[in-house]
């Protein structure tokens, strides 16, 4: 009887785990919507800095490295330059105006909202390319 209950709970855990994974993967599919957007990135076949899976996990480290090089050493035009990320990933509306990347459902916000991580870059940085 006890063994049976154990098996039962195992099955239940497995089912819960499978459901959770399905939930994550369906949400993950939403994050790649930028490929259908109006950004420059949507038109590019190959990923520019690193592949999407790497960037999803590590973009903050890439950006941080670039920020130190740029601010403190004057190195510009590097991989992981935030202004380049924005210039490429920013979508345009019907009138051709840039939609801020931290606006609801946009490239940065959609993912950060999902994982519940504060998006601090734009307290100082522009959310659209402005020259």
């Amino acid at each position, binding site marked *: 009887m006890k063994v049976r209950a154990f098996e039962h709970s195992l099955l239940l855990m497995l089912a819960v785990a499978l459901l959770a994974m399905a939930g994550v993967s369906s949400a993950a599919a939403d994050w790649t919507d930028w490929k259908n957007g109006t950004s420059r990135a949507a038109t590019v076949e190959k990923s520019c800095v690193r592949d999407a899976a790497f960037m999803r996990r590590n973009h903050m480290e890439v950006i941080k490295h670039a920020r130190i090089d740029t*601010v403190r*050493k*004057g190195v*510009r035009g*590097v991989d992981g330059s935030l202004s380049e990320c924005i210039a490429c990933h920013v979508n345009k509306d019907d009138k051709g105006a840039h939609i801020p990347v931290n606006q609801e459902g946009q490239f940065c916000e959609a993912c950060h909202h999902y994982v519940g991580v504060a998006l601090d870059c734009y*307290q100082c940085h522009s959310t659209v*390319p*402005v020259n």
Partner: protein
Amino acid sequence: MNNSQDTNQKRRQFLLKGAAVTAVAVAPGVMLHTAAKAKPLGDAVTDAVRWGMLVDAAKCADGCDSCVQACNDENGLNLLQKPQGASDEMWDEQIPKWIRNVKVKDNLTGHVTNLPMMCQHCEEPPCVDVCPTTASFRRADGIVMVDRHLCIGCRYCMMACPYKARSFVHEVVEHKLTRAPRGKGCVESCNFCVHRLDDGKTTTACQDACAKDGHNAITFGDLNDPGSEVSQALKEQSSTQIRADLKLNTGVRYRGV
């Protein structure tokens, strides 16, 4: 490498020797100077260059604020909006200013001097000394800057600066330029238009505006290059550091003060 350096040295010596002749030969008022070297985009800055400025206060026109306006445009300071309910007086005190128009009057003679006062880009900057987070730092090429990623807004540097060169951003900033990030709670000051220099340009916005108005009060360039316009100008005539007694070896020098 050595050969090209030798060549450059010879070229400089030739230019130095021939400076008086070329001034006449080329055209009146046109001098030949070595152009500042542009750094490749992906390279780190080095101490081979020290950016510096000479301000001739005698050429600085009374009532002119071209340099201030150009600085505001270039660095997005004119995008800042007055907080609701703030008086004009308070806003004027709080709005970040990278260049201040300073008017000095000699009470004995009545002589009035106008000059732009900004970060003096000291070799020994007091702001860097006091910064608890290393946000205030001096770049290898002599530019004193604030790394806003590390700035906690304590404002020690504002207290330490003898030139009142630094400003604090008190409110949330809605509109900003890509080249000039800015946010609430950080200190900032003149950075010699660092984005221009990093992109290979060799002038600042204030200098360009002053020249455009025909005043030519601001000369900017590499202090380490004896052939640069600013080095030549400093060599030719006397200049002063403001608060030279502090022995900060400022990167901004003044004439006619």
